[in-house]
């Protein structure tokens, strides 16, 4: 039997992997994918808690988070594309003109 705890632990693991990925990976696209992983970890937690608390709010919130994440993808890819076309690189290390 799978208990809700398993899902929570899985979500926590996904969130951690995502957070570590954001901090160590250098390609903007990969960084962005790691953020999406973190959002989905949040979603998994939300639906798990919807189950344990017996309320429906968590499932509704997961839908909202998905919709917002989709909008975020549009904006994010537009920005990364613009940078890539000017520099031929999507590495966050190459974007270093703003050092004081």
């Amino acid at each position, binding site marked *: 039997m799978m208990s809700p705890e398993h899902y929570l632990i899985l979500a926590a693991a996904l969130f951690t992997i995502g957070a570590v990925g954001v901090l160590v990976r250098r390609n903007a696209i990969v960084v962005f994918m790691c953020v999406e992983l973190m959002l989905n970890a949040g979603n998994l937690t*939300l639906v798990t808690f919807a189950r344990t608390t017996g309320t429906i709010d968590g499932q509704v919130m997961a839908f909202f*988070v998905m919709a917002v994440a989709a909008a975020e993808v549009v*904006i994010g890819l537009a920005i990364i594309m613009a940078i890539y076309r000017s520099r031929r690189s999507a590495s966050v290390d190459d974007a*270093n003109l703003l050092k004081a």
Partner: protein
Amino acid sequence: MSEMSIDWAGLAPMIIVFASAFAGLLIEASVPKARRLVVQVGLAVLALAAAFIAVVLNAGKSATAFALEGTDIGSVALDGPGLFLQGTIALLSVVAVLLLAEQRTTRGGDFVSEAAVVADSAADIAQRRESGATEIFPLTLFAVGGMMMFVVAGDLLTMFVALEMLSLPLYLLCGLAKRRRLISQEAALKYFLLGAFASAFFVYGMAMLYGFAGTISLTGINAAGINSNEPRILLYIGVGMIAVAMLFKAAAVPFHMWTPDVYTGAPTPVTALMAACVKVAAFGALLRVFNVGLQSSAWDWHTILVVIAIATMIGGAIFAVTQRNIKRLLAYSSIANAGYLLIGVISLGDAVGQTMFYLAAYGFTVIAAFAVVSLVRDGDDEATDLSRWAGLGKNSTGTAVIFTVLMLALAGIPFTSGFTAKFSLFSAGLEAGEIGLVVVGVVSSAILAFPYLRVVVLLWLNEPAPDAPTVNLPSPMAGTVVAAGVLATVLLGVAPGFLLDIVSEASTFLGT
């Protein structure tokens, strides 16, 4: 048959702003390019003014906007602080829109005409002569609508949607500068990646608080802080992660790293919008979350928030001293000011009114300061390096006088709004018993006065270089921005009574 009652008048400010933003998108598609600027600016200013009037008509209200069969649904809480901050955001954003529309200081404005053209290519150099894109106005309206929603959000989901609503257009606006496009795009990338990282924290924190309380309404979370049987660790993680996301937007140390880079790289009118309006929205939401949702668990978060406030006040002030670029200096000063505002958040109910007063006063001063920064030019570029500002008082006395007044206000000299705002906020902090924080705040203000006064000395006592930057005379647009900012700065310094009365009337959150 369930009966849903909706307070349309209470929602009107947000509806007006969002509807105008959509109308702005249609204008982009239907009005000829030559007339678009006038139509878009007119629409944006009218919409924000109408939204402000709608907020004023709601004054004194303290109720939720939605109710189902007589039961309040707390997703939108129209109360004193929410309405006051909505009004402040509307007014500040009218001023910011005028600055966005400025076309005379640099030909065609500060914004790129076709953002899809590769930066620094031949086509890009050719389009520098064209006037800037007008989709910045609908984008701004969407962001402002999100901010107005952020400060009245009564549950975590509404708050999350509003947070994204205000952030996403701002990411784009940051990347639309006409000059120095690579730097502008880099600022957008940094802001976007770190902002998305912070929103992921918000989602996870929201999930944790939902697991802890079984509800997402702030009042429900407050009640659960006392009587929930769930493990308390859920509350700790939830509060921590939500605080990270919101302190990121508010630019508190150690979540401030993006601020100097983004403030420097973004087009100056967008920086002004961020420094004034986003600050108001972020602190409005912080005040609401901690006052309404987390008051019952104050013991659990008090210490860590105090540490963050001290780090923000001291860190912001010390880094400001070392800056050589006026936009970076203002960025670090905005970080230090976030620290002072955190005193208001930590003091909870005792300091809500004073925090709101500080937000309004600081917003007008900083918007005018960035407007002046956008006037001082080396050719077509802004002269942001401080050494270039030496002796500006000799050649452009009027501009230098105005900038001096603004610097003195930011330094908190008496008879400016900076002094009255700091004085009332710090006294509220003292009354709430946060003596240590207030002492740090005063020390930090003293440190922070040094870089401002150094700018003043530079303006008046140094000899101008032979190739000194020119001060481009603004059109009535940016002229109005500077005038409004200086007027508010002096007025709130000399006669702050009327606004202090308003904020003390409007300082009770619904549900506390």
